[in-house]
Every structure is written in structure tokens, then in C-alpha cells.
């Protein structure tokens, strides 16, 4: 490993020379994380909304479970899904293990509780008059729920962005379910772990710069939304 300055220069060169492997890794990360967050939003937003507006026995317990899932280590998610997708597992026949789809599935599991919790917080913190107003104007409960989401849209967007920030930066799921296969399931985080262990510090650093930039953009956007 050379000096940090040299590595940084090489990292910038790799990025600006459009090194195919670097960009392919970046693409895999963005592609799997984006797909995962779309699925997580489709599942997590209705769950958060439902928990926010419904009152039923066991609601508190459900919310506690959701909070626990938020703190679930990524390697545990990876381990459980590995068991499901492995050849002997119930979904083994699908042949998903070590494909981007297995990573997407794992990252969806990781992001869904985050999205649901953020949406739940947004609904709980929203103006209690919204639902009543919309209902008294003649909306059905479903229409009123959709309108509520529109009214708290910045909170919902913040939920999606927070989920995205979590999945793009995770290693455990991508490593266990993707297998870090070059040109197929190698993401920025798994590549950084691998290349650094091989002594390819500059390569790891270039991906680290991109990952940090993505995290920075996501957080700036999140900050901007929270201020509105």
C-alpha cells in the first residue's frame, strides 16, 4: 500500500478515466439498492400508514417488533435469506442465491422496517385534522389515506431516502447473498472490503469516494426535506 496521497490520486484517476470495473461496481450498487428501495417503499409505506391510522389490539407490540426489525444486523438478514435461497432451502429451486435478485430481496427486508417506521412517525406527527377533513368532504377511508400520504409527502420521501441510504451502505446482505462476484454481484461496499484486503487500496478508495458522495447527496436531500 502506497501513501494515502498516492492512493487518493490513483483513485481519482480510476474514476475519471472511467475504469470499467469501477463503474460496473457502482452501477451494481445503484441498481440493486434502487430496486430494493422501490420494493421496500411498496411494502413499507402501506404498513407505516396502516399502523399510524389504525387502532387495534396488539398495535403497540407490532410497533415494537417493527422497531426491533430496524435494528436487525445485516448479517442476520443475510443468514436467514441464505437459508431460504440455498439449494436445500424452500426457495432453492429458484436459483436466486449469488444473483443480484437475492441481494435485492435481502436489501428489501433490510429497508422495509426503516421505511415503515419513518412513515409511521410522519403519520403520527401529522395534523390529526387531515383525515377528518378529507372524510367529511366525502372521501372513502382509502381515498383519505392516499390524501394523508400526499399531505405528508416530505415525510414519506424522507422515509424512502433514509431506506436508500441504509441499503447502499450495507455490506452483510450483499456479501452473503450476492457472493461478491466480479461483474455480477460486486457492489461498492463488498468491493471495498475485498480490494482493501488484497492491498488494492487505491481501488477501494475510489469506490469509497463514490460511496461517500452518494451518502452525502442522500443526506443533503434528507436534510432539505426535513427542513420543509
Amino acid at each position, binding site marked *: 500500500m502506497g501513501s494515502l496521497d498516492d492512493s487518493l490520486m490513483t483513485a481519482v484517476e480510476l474514476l475519471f478515466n472511467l475504469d470499467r470495473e469501477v463503474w460496473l461496481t457502482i452501477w451494481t450498487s445503484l441498481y440493486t439498492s434502487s430496486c430494493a428501495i422501490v420494493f421496500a417503499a411498496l411494502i413499507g409505506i402501506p404498513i407505516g400508514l396502516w399502523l399510524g391510522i389504525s387502532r387495534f389490539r396488539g398495535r403497540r407490540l407490532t410497533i415494537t417488533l417493527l422497531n426491533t426489525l430496524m435494528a436487525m444486523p445485516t448479517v442476520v438478514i443475510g443468514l436467514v435469506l441464505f437459508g431460504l435461497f440455498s439449494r436445500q432451502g424452500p426457495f432453492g429451486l429458484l436459483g436466486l442465491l449469488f444473483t443480484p435478485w437475492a441481494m435485492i430481496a435481502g436489501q428489501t427486508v433490510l429497508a422495509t422496517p426503516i421505511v415503515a417506521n419513518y412513515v409511521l412517525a410522519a403519520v403520527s406527527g401529522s395534523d390529526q385534522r387531515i383525515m377528518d377533513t378529507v372524510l367529511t*368532504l*366525502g372521501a372513502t377511508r382509502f381515498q383519505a389515506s392516499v390524501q394523508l400520504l400526499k399531505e405528508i409527502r416530505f415525510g414519506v420521501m424522507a422515509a424512502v431516502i433514509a431506506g436508500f441510504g441504509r441499503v447502499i451502505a450495507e455490506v452483510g446482505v450483499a456479501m452473503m447473498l450476492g457472493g461478491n462476484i466480479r461483474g455480477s454481484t460486486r457492489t461498492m461496499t463488498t468491493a471495498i472490503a475485498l480490494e482493501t484486503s488484497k492491498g488494492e487500496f487505491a481501488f477501494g478508495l475510489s469506490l469509497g469516494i463514490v460511496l461517500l458522495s452518494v451518502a452525502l447527496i442522500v443526506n443533503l436531500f434528507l436534510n432539505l426535506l426535513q427542513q420543509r
Partner: protein
Amino acid sequence: MEPVISIKDVLVKQGEIFSLSIENLELHFRRIYTLMGSNGAGKSTLLRTMALLTLPERGTVRLADAGAGNLAQQRQKVTLVEQSPYLLKGSVSDNLAFGLKLRGIRRKEQKKRIISALALVGLEGFEPRKANELSGGEVQRVALARALVLEPKVLLLDEPTSSIDSKSLQAFEEMLSQLPENGVTIVLATHDRFMAERLGGEMLQIENGRILDRSHRLSEYNSTKENQVWPKLLNAQGL
């Protein structure tokens, strides 16, 4: 004649202490009813029960012509304007169009009705204004216009003048007093006995969640053909 709202043996519980209990209450078409009572007497709960927003633990709330439709269809017969109303994000026009869209009213007619309803509450030209940039009194009037634009059979008003300045108050009361002749039943909760007396109609005294007294009074406002409300709306629509 069938009552527009019929409440029978209704019990609504709110927490451990308060409960609204109405044995029998029938409200008729084209009348003004004012609910009088101290804070926490149950006026708002009764209005919310009539609006089918709060469902009773026991008893029935029946709306005329509501049929056996679902709750949303039944709610379309009544509209509640709350004391501190919530305006949806967007423009004043978006707010007024919301209920019209739910009722499948065409865009062209929506526009005409919105202009007329805003004129009724003295907010001509407010269509493009952002809802979050309005004053308290304007919010209350936009909320009233949002209810009027739907031409409800029953209009429920909870302290509707709490943010309206004294200059606009008389015009507001005159407009309200003319609504029954246009087929609207008004149920209004207020602390203002003088306002209730000026509007006339039937006064219902409510305390501790029970109706104690009912009395009639004539309106102080003249209702001539020229100053009726719905004809103004219909004329504006070219109907």
C-alpha cells in the same frame, strides 16, 4: 315529513369521564339549529356524531335520503366545518375542488362553482392563493366555501365565526340565514347567544352531553328573493 337527521338512543363515550347521550333528536329540512352550551358540554361531539366522523357505541344516526350506501356516501350528505379548520396543501382552488372531484363533477362546472362559493364568503379572486399563506379568518372562510361548494343537505358549523372580524360578521350571518331557503339545514355550535338569537331557528341547550332545552326564535334577517344564496350560485353557473 322525514327528518333530515334522526338520532335515536345514541351513546358516545370519550375517555372515562365524558359521554354524549341523546335519547331522541330529529332535525328537519331547511331550518337553522344552534347548539348552545359551555366548553366541554358536548357540542363538537354532537356535530362530529352527526357528520358520522364519530361513530356511537350504541344507537343510530340516520340521514334522510342516505339510503343503504356506505359510510362515505352517507357522509356526502353532510359537511362539517370545524372550529379551526384544516386546509389541504395547495391552492384555495385545490381545496374547493377536492370534494367536487370526489363527486365526479366535471372540471368546467367545478371552476364555476368554486368562483361562486368564494364570492359567497367574500373571497373573490382567491382561487390561486396558497392555503398556507392565508390569515385565520380567511382560512375559516375558505373552509366554509369548501363546504358550500358541495351544496350539502346539512351544513354543520362548529364555532364558525371565531376568527371572523366584526366587519364581515353581519354579511356572514345574513348569508347563513338564507341557506335554509335554499334547501340547507344548518346546525351551528356557538357560545355567542346574541348570534344565535339573530340567526333565529331552534336553539338547543346542551350540557354534560345531554340536551336540556329547545326553544324557537325568528330570524332577525330578512330573506327576500333578491338576496337568496343558491340562486346566486345557480346564476353564476348560468343554470
